[in-house]
């Protein structure tokens, strides 16, 4: 099975709420640490298929598959600062967004 440069996770926005959400393998979570990383081309293809299905089911929009690094406990952290901001909320309003309710 082909390995890839960085593990990846599937993220999107919730259609009704607009919240940033992450695919856990079985459903969607507001917390990126719940996301299931894909580490092979086949696993990435599965994420893409999942995204397509949930877009078609009108659950999500603005789908992105992003690069992550895995922590020692195996949990994913986005590599790019844009995606890190999406897991937190505005850096100038720490009382808002996901960071307000970790």
């Amino acid at each position: 099975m082909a390995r890839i440069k960085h593990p990846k996770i599937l993220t999107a926005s919730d259609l009704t709420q607009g919240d940033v959400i992450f695919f856990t393998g079985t459903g969607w979570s507001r917390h990126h640490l719940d996301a299931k990383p894909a580490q092979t081309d086949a696993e990435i293809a599965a994420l893409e298929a999942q995204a397509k299905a949930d877009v078609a089911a009108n659950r999500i929009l603005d789908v992105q598959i992003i690069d992550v690094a895995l922590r020692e406990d195996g949990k994913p952290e986005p590599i790019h600062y844009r995606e890190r901001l999406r897991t937190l909320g505005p850096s100038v309003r720490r009382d808002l967004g996901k960071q307000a309710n970790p």
Partner: protein
Amino acid sequence: MNIPVTPQHFYTYDEFDAAFVRTRVAEFREQVQRRLSGALTEEEFRPLRLMNGLYLQLHAYMLRIAVPYGTLSSTQMRQFAHIADKWDKGYGHFTTRQNIQFNWPKLVDVPDILDALADVNMHAIQTSGNCIRNVTADHFSGVAADEIADPRPTAELIRQWSSNHPEFSFLPRKFKVAVSGAAHDRAATRVHDVGLRVVQNEVGEIGYEVLAGGGLGRTPMVGHIVREFLPKADLLPYMEALMRVYNSYGRRDNKFKARIKILVHETGLDEIREQIEAEFESLDKAAIAADPAEIARIEAQFAPPPYETLPDVSESVKKAKAANTEFARFVDINTATHKQPGYTIVTVSLKPIGGVPGDATAAQMGVLADVADKYSLSELRVSHEQNIVLPYVKKDDLFALWQELKAADLATSNASLITDIIACPGMDYCSLATVRSIPIAQAISERFADLDRQRLIGKLGIKISGCINACGHHHVAGIGILGLEKSGEESYQITLGGDPTLSASIGERLGPGLRADEVPDTIERIVGVYLAHRDLDEDFIHTYRRIGHDAFKSALVTGTPRMPAANPLDQGGGI
């Protein structure tokens, strides 16, 4: 149910306007339902939501609401506070297009928000999409001492003409119009797709100087005069002709070359002028021109209020200034000359030291509505500099007003000074941004927090954009800051010498990008060069033009953190 409108001195919706907005809300409510049911895909729904001002941003949806020509009533401001509290997160963001944005609405709530806006004669139509956007105007319209004529009746006429205009709802790209009626250009008319300046010809007739092809973004350009004097009655036929030329020949093959500035640039000014004039001559002008009775109806609604006859000098203000230096500073910095003796124009800064430029809490919006009722004939303005203006304040009321503003943290005395920074939302909110801009504004604001020092530096505009789209207008700042991603890190380019006024110019890059933590030091050094070279009372742009760009290059020393001076004024080099 529409909330009754108190007597106001600007346009009030008639039955047609109110019905039009209500119909659009009902239509959008149905479109949202169809989206939620799956009858509409996102691809189908996206243009519909954008036409109603609803974006999807980095963390959530964002709703952009039009404040026509930046003028609003206390009732409307109070409704913003209500919306912020009920459906958002207790605050709103005033923008460089004189609009307000809410950063956290839920799709399911947006129809109710739009109904609440319709209750106070407001909407979010044409705040996005490739159409004629909300028309902006001088935020001192109707009250400025240097005004030839109030530009807002013109802006209102264009609002009515352009709303749902069938021919101009799908332009090659968005289209922004600004109108100014004063000797000084406070509406940045030379960097809009079309700028209209109210002018008088040699026989005293009022008309317009028409500028076209200005704009910022990735290809900043200063607009050109396409008509030196356009008779007032010809406004709509001429606009129709100009828009037709743009709609016909503007590029649709490349989004980045689709604005009218590129068409003017590629076609040539003489040729584009001839095309517009030829189209203008071919039109049935009488059929397009606004009915004079309708123009008179609109103009009547902007009639000046019944001013009191007052002495121009207020003894109470003189006494209060003598007794309170903080108040004296506020009066000196945040008020402007009014056309009516005894009155003044007050700028309420939304730039507290270290704050988020343009943000106001729901509570602050409530206070702004209250003080507008008490001291400004229930009227406010949103400036493109992201501040609020109270246009009808009696000088005798200034001290009481200042005390109420101060209690709400709205009395920062920095209008047009170095901490009155324009900043786009940047990557803290915006999905298009490539870096953050607000933290840079905050860091500079804190660095120059000392109000006496700010006064010493004088008027100096810093404007920050978090990407090449330039929503923070950095190209026309004395000191502009453009954020860009560089090797996966946030990086900031400095430009100098931009100017949004009649002497408009685009800033020139100072050198390579800086790390975020290098920016305040670099601004400090630029200010140091300026203070070292300026003639008495010479503002930044004039010193810059006199001594030249290269004189500032020494300010750009990257990678060498520099300690702030023990006495900040030491930077002045002998001032």
